[in-house]
């Protein structure tokens, strides 16, 4: 079994600086143009950037696209 499922931790995949996907999250705390905050099992993940869009959201995965400047755990 993968680690993130066992320990209920998020799996963050970043492709370059334009795409990002977070798996295994709990919910969205804040969503604006330049800051998205996602609640996960490891705390609140803050993504900062410009023109951030939520490409898809389901209960397991969330896809963010846009210009990503920083990711804070």
């Amino acid at each position, binding site marked *: 079994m993968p680690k993130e499922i066992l320990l209920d931790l998020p799996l963050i995949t970043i492709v370059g600086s334009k795409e990002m996907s977070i798996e295994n999250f709990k919910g969205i705390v804040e969503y604006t143009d330049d800051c998205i905050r996602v609640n996960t099992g490891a705390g609140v993940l803050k993504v900062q950037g410009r023109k951030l869009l939520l490409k898809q959201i389901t*209960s397991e995965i969330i896809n963010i696209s846009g210009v990503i400047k920083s990711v804070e755990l």
Partner: protein
Amino acid sequence: MFLNIWNYIRGYVTIEASGFSVERFINMAAHRGVYIWDVHPSGAKISMKMSVNGFKRLKGCTKKTKCKMRIVKKSGLPFLMYKYRKRRVFALGILLFVVALYLLSSFIWVVEISGNERITTNAIISFCEEIGLKPGAFKYTLDTKKMTNEFMEAFPDLSWLAIEVKGTKAKISVVETIEAPKMIDKTTPCDIVASSDGLITDIVVTSGTTLVKPRDVVKKGDVLVSGMLTIMDGEEIKGYRYTHAEAEVFAKVTEEITLTEDLRYTRKDYTGKTKKRYAVSIVKNKFNIISTGVNYRYYDKIIRTKPLNLGGDFALPVSIETAEYKEYKPVMIERKFDDAKALLTQKLDRMLEIKLEDDVFSISEREVGFEEINGKAVLNAAITVQMRIDEKAEPRAAIPGQDNIEH
């Protein structure tokens, strides 16, 4: 991309959500299993897309999160069908069109033959019609394997045949056998006779008894080389044996050619006025497109037929015929004798060119004379050519020594 098609077929709405905590609203949607995509904020509002079912399920969420949902756009097949629910006949028409198109392209409309050199195209086409491969044949009931076999049986000259049905075209490719060299029957006795009058220049004999030599004048039908061999026993003639004579006999032959050309003729002076009339023919029935008649007194009619096809291999049994009527005025022209002479000489030259290609080896003499008779220019030419005059014929008992050939 396929996801988009799938969403379009199911139908989706674009909504705008505004309120206090839109994030909680999105969370609730995600947790309830509603798939949301293309989320972007526009000012204080956030717009997103979700499926129609999802939308229905989220109606209850708005109250809990104190958000307002507003439908901005409805897209998808279900909405389209609802919009045109009164236009059922239109939909039926579309369906009929598709069915008709499929049906029409299930028949063969054009049969194309390629690769044949010795066997005439007409022979192949008429055989095709006999076995059922003709325009109007239903594609799916054709047994091409059986037809290929039938073809190979009927035409022994074929070494390979393929029938390919592509679209509405049946392509028949043919490869013929290499022609066996003509067997010269070396057993039947025969003589070599002259095919025309002439003066002999050369003889090359392969078998037989020669009866003539160079500088002899022969007439048409004279025996040049006899297939009869006399068997001698010492000084006595024991008997005769007939063989197959073979020889090449070259001679000078004089031919007379007469050509005439009218000095007065009518020339067509096209006035430049033309009229076009159209006709449409569907499966061999012709329908003229009605219009006023053509009232020229003298005219040339040129008919051009153009078959229609849906691009490439899908030929339809419909063709458009354009008949162009060109008016002309007939004018009587008197040709000068010199011009007529030049024209006749041209004609003669062309005739001789063809002759040279055929059989004749060289033209040695040429005498040309012109006269005017009854308003026509006449060319009389005596052409002497050197050609082969040997011809095989049934053997005649020509006894060597006794013949009527001038030496």
